[in-house]
C-alpha cells in the first residue's frame, strides 16, 4: 500500500477519462461478468437506471481480488466516479480519505434530496455512528440487513438421540456438560461397537465454530481475528479477553477435557474440510459442537441447547455478530465524480424496500432467487443442488449493494421467510435473553492506528494462539505460565493496543445518542 501511495504521489492524479458532462455519472461495479446468463444483469441495470433521470455509464471489473486491482488503478491515477460493492476494507476507506481521493458525503444528505438516507440515519443512529470516519466525515453508504437470526453465528448443538439413549438430561452448566461428554465417550452411544465418538470438537479455521465461544459461560463474549481481535466490552470499557481470569478458567476447562480424552485430539490441527467431514459422517461421531447452522449428515439427531453457565450462577453472555448494525462501506464517491449530488439522490432510492430486497437477494425474475407477484415477493424454486445463500450471489448485480431491510420485513407478507429461516428464528428467540448487549462494533481506525495495530497484534495474537494450544494439550503448565504470559503481552504492547481500540470505540460511542 505504501508503494501504491508513493506511486500515486509520483504520477499525480489526472482522474479517469470522462468526456464531457452529460449531467450523469459513471458507476463501477465489481461484477463477475456483464454477460452472466439469463439476462438478470441487464434487468438489474435497467431497474437501477430507472431510478434516476440522468444517464449512468456502467463500468465493470472482476470481483476476483477486486480490491488489489482497483487500488492499482487508483494508484495509476485512474478513478471511477462512483463505486458500488463490498470489496474495500475500512482501512482502505481511511487511506483514500487521507489522500483526499474520495469525497465526504454528509453535506449532500438532507430531507429533501435524500429522504431515505436522512430517515435511516435518524432511525438507526448506530450505523451513522459507525459510518463516521476518524476525521469526522462520512464517506460511505451502508447496507443494513436486519435478519437478526442470521447474525447468531454460534448455536450450541448436542446429539439428542445419544442423550436419550444414555438417559441423560440436557446439560445446563459446564459440569453437567462434562458428565455428558464422559458418557458419550465411554458408553458407545452411536452403537457401532467402536469407541469412535468425538464428545466435543471445534474448528479453529471457522468463523463460527471457534473455541472462544465457551467463554460465554463466564459471562463474556468475544471472537478471534482481524475484525474482533478477542475484544470484549464491559460497561463501555474495552478489554482484551485472553488476559482475563475468565480466559484462564476456560483454558483450564478445555485442558481437563483434553486430558480425559473428551475434546477432539485433532481439534487444533484439523482443517475445515476434515471438520466438515466429521460432521458429514454417515454414522454420527460428534456429541457436541457449535455452528451457525445445523449442517450435519444426521442433522435431525441434533438439537440446539441454551448457553451453559460456568457454575450455574453466572448468566451466560452470548455473542452476536455486529453485522446487524449494518455494513458501512458499500458505496463511495471519488473526487472526480461530475455530479455527486445526482449520484446520491439516485443511491437514496436503493433504501426503498423493493430496491433493497432486489439489491440484496436477487433481481426479481423467474430464473432468479425470487419473483414479484403484485406488490409482494415470493421465493422461486431453485435449480437442483443450489441454496439461496449462495445462488443469490449470481442473481444480484454485485454483493455489497446499499440496502435497508428492517427486521420487521423478514417473514412479512411482502418478503416471506425461506424454508429453514423460521427454525433459525426460533433458535434466535431461545438465545435472545443471553445475547451480549455490548458487542465490539468493529469501528473505524485512522491510518496510523491501523498500521500500529497490525504491528502490535501480529505478535500478541500468535502468542495467544500458541499458548492456548500448549496449555490445553498439556504441553505446558497453565498455572505456572499464566502470570508470565500476561507480563509478556504487556511487554509486547498490550496496553497500547488496548488504548487504540478504546479510542476507536469511544469515537463510535460519541456518535451515538445518549
Amino acid at each position, binding site marked *: 500500500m505504501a508503494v501504491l501511495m508513493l506511486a500515486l504521489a509520483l504520477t499525480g492524479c489526472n482522474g479517469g477519462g470522462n468526456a464531457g458532462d452529460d449531467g450523469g455519472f459513471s458507476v463501477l461495479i465489481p461484477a*463477475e461478468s456483464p454477460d452472466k446468463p439469463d439476462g438478470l444483469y441487464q434487468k438489474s441495470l435497467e431497474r437501477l437506471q430507472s431510478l434516476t433521470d440522468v444517464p449512468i455509464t456502467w463500468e465493470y471489473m472482476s470481483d476476483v481480488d477486486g480490491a488489489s486491482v482497483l487500488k492499482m488503478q487508483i494508484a495509476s491515477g485512474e478513478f471511477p466516479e462512483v463505486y458500488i460493492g463490498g470489496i474495500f476494507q475500512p482501512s482502505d476507506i481511511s487511506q483514500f480519505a487521507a489522500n483526499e481521493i474520495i469525497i465526504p458525503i454528509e453535506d449532500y444528505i438532507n430531507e429533501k434530496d435524500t429522504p431515505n438516507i436522512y430517515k435511516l440515519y435518524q432511525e438507526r443512529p448506530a450505523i451513522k455512528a459507525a459510518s463516521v470516519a476518524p476525521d469526522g466525515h462520512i464517506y460511505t453508504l451502508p447496507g443494513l440487513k436486519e435478519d437478526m437470526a442470521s447474525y447468531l453465528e454460534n448455536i450450541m448443538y448436542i446429539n439428542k438421540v445419544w442423550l436419550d439413549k444414555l438417559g441423560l438430561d440436557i446439560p445446563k452448566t459446564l459440569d453437567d456438560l462434562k458428565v455428558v461428554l464422559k458418557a458419550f465417550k465411554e458408553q458407545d452411544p452411536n452403537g457401532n461397537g467402536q469407541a469412535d465418538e468425538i464428545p466435543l470438537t471445534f474448528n479453529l479455521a471457522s468463523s463460527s465454530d471457534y473455541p472462544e465461544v465457551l467463554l460465554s459461560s463466564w459471562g463474556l463474549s468475544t471472537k478471534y481475528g482481524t475484525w474482533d481481535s478477542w475484544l470484549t466490552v464491559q460497561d463501555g470499557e474495552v478489554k482484551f479477553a485472553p488476559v482475563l481470569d475468565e480466559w484462564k478458567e476456560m483454558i483450564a476447562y478445555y485442558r481437563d477435557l483434553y486430558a480425559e480424552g473428551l475434546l477432539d485430539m485433532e481439534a487444533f490441527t484439523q482443517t475445515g474440510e476434515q471438520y466438515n467431514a466429521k460432521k*458429514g459422517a454417515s454414522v454420527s461421531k460428534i456429541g457436541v459442537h457449535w455452528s*451457525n447452522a445445523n449442517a450435519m449428515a444426521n442433522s435431525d439427531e441434533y438439537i440446539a441447547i441454551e448457553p451453559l453457565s460456568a457454575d450455574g450462577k453466572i448468566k451466560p453472555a452470548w455473542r452476536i455478530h455486529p453485522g446487524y448494525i449494518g455494513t458501512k462501506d458499500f458505496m463511495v464517491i471519488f473526487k472526480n465524480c461530475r455530479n455527486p449530488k445526482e449520484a446520491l439522490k439516485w443511491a437514496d432510492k436503493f433504501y426503498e424496500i423493493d430496491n433493497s430486497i432486489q439489491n440484496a437477494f436477487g433481481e426479481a425474475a423467474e430464473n432468479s432467487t425470487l419473483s414479484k407477484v403484485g406488490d409482494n415477493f415470493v421465493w422461486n424454486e431453485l435449480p437442483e443442488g443450489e441454496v439461496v445463500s449462495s445462488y443469490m450471489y449470481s442473481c444480484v448485480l454485485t454483493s455489497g449493494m446499499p440496502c435497508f431491510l428492517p427486521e420487521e420485513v423478514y417473514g412479512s407478507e411482502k418478503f416471506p421467510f425461506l424454508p429453514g429461516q423460521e427454525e433459525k428464528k426460533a433458535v434466535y428467540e431461545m438465545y435472545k435473553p443471553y445475547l451480549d448487549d455490548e458487542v465490539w462494533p468493529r469501528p473505524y481506525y485512522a491510518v496510523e492506528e491501523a498500521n500500529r495495530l497490525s504491528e502490535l497484534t501480529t505478535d500478541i495474537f500468535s502468542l495467544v494462539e500458541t499458548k492456548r494450544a500448549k496449555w490445553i494439550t498439556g504441553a505446558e503448565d497453565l498455572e505456572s505460565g499464566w502470570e508470565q504470559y500476561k507480563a509478556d503481552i504487556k511487554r509486547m504492547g498490550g496496553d497500547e493496543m488496548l488504548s487504540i481500540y478504546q479510542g476507536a470505540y469511544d469515537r463510535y460511542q460519541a456518535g451515538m445518542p445518549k
Partner: protein
Amino acid sequence: MAKTKTINKIKDSGSDRVFGIVNGTILTIFTLLVLYPIYFILSASISDPTYVNLGETFLFPKGINFLGYEKLLEYPTILRGFANSVLYTVSGVCIQMFTCVTCAFALSRKELPGRRWLNGFFVLTMYIGGGLVPSYILYRDLHILNTIWVIILPTALSVYNMIVCRSFFMSNISEELFEATKIDGGSYTTFFIKVVLPLSKAILAVLVLYHALAHWNNYTSALYYLRDSRKYPLQMVLKGLTASLSSDVQDMGMDAKAIADKIKAEQAVRYAIIIIGSIPVFLMYPFVQKYFVKGVMVGSVKG
C-alpha cells in the same frame, strides 16, 4: 591368475547388481513420492468428499462418482476460459520462441559487435523491473489494456530462457560447423535455419515446454490487465470459481441438509478443478519427453 580374475568378475557383477537394485529402489520410491499427490488428487476428484476428508481414500477411491466434473462443466465460463488459455499459450509461445531463439543465436556469435554490452543490458532487465503501477500506466498508454496483446507482449522475451538457449548454442554448436557452412557458400541465415535449429531440437523442446507452462499458469497479468471476463484465461476463471465456492454458504437460517450437500459438492468441484487445470500439462510432457533423452548427447563433430 585366471581363477582370481573370475572371482573378481563375479564380485564386480555382484556389486553392480546391488548397485542396480539399490538405485532402482531409491528411484522407484522417489517416483512414487512424486506421483502420489497427483494420484491422490485424481482419486479424490472421483470419490465421495466425505471419505476424502476422513482420510479413507489413501490408496483407492471410495464412493466413486463424477459429481465434481459434472458440476464443473456446468459452468459456461470454463470452456471459454479453456479456449482463451489455448489461444494465449499458442500465440505467446510462438512469439517467445521466435524472439528467444533468434536473440540467443545472435548473442552466441562472438563476432557480434557490442556483444558484451548487449548481454549486460539483457541481464539488467532481470534485476530491475518497472513494478506494477508503472507497468499498468505503460500498457494503458500503449492502448493494449484489455486485449490479447497485454498478455503476450510484455513477456515476449524471457531473458532467462534466452540465456539458457544462448549457452546451449555456444557449447554445442561448434565453430567448425559455421566454417563448413561458409565454405559451402551459406549465410548466417542458412547456418541458423539449416544447421543450428535442427541440431537444437532438444533445447527447443524444453524451451517450448517452459514457455507454454508459464503462459498456461499465468494469472496475474490477466487479473490486473484484463477487464472483460470474456477474455479471461482458464486460471482466472478457475480462481473466480474457487473464490465463489468458498463464499459463505451458511449465512441465513437455511435448510441444513441442503447446506451440507452444497459443501460436499463444492469440495468435489475443487479437486476436479485441479485436474482440469493440469490436463494440458500432463498431455504435453510425454511429447517433449523424447527430446529430453535424445539430442543433447548426439554430437555432430567426431573426434
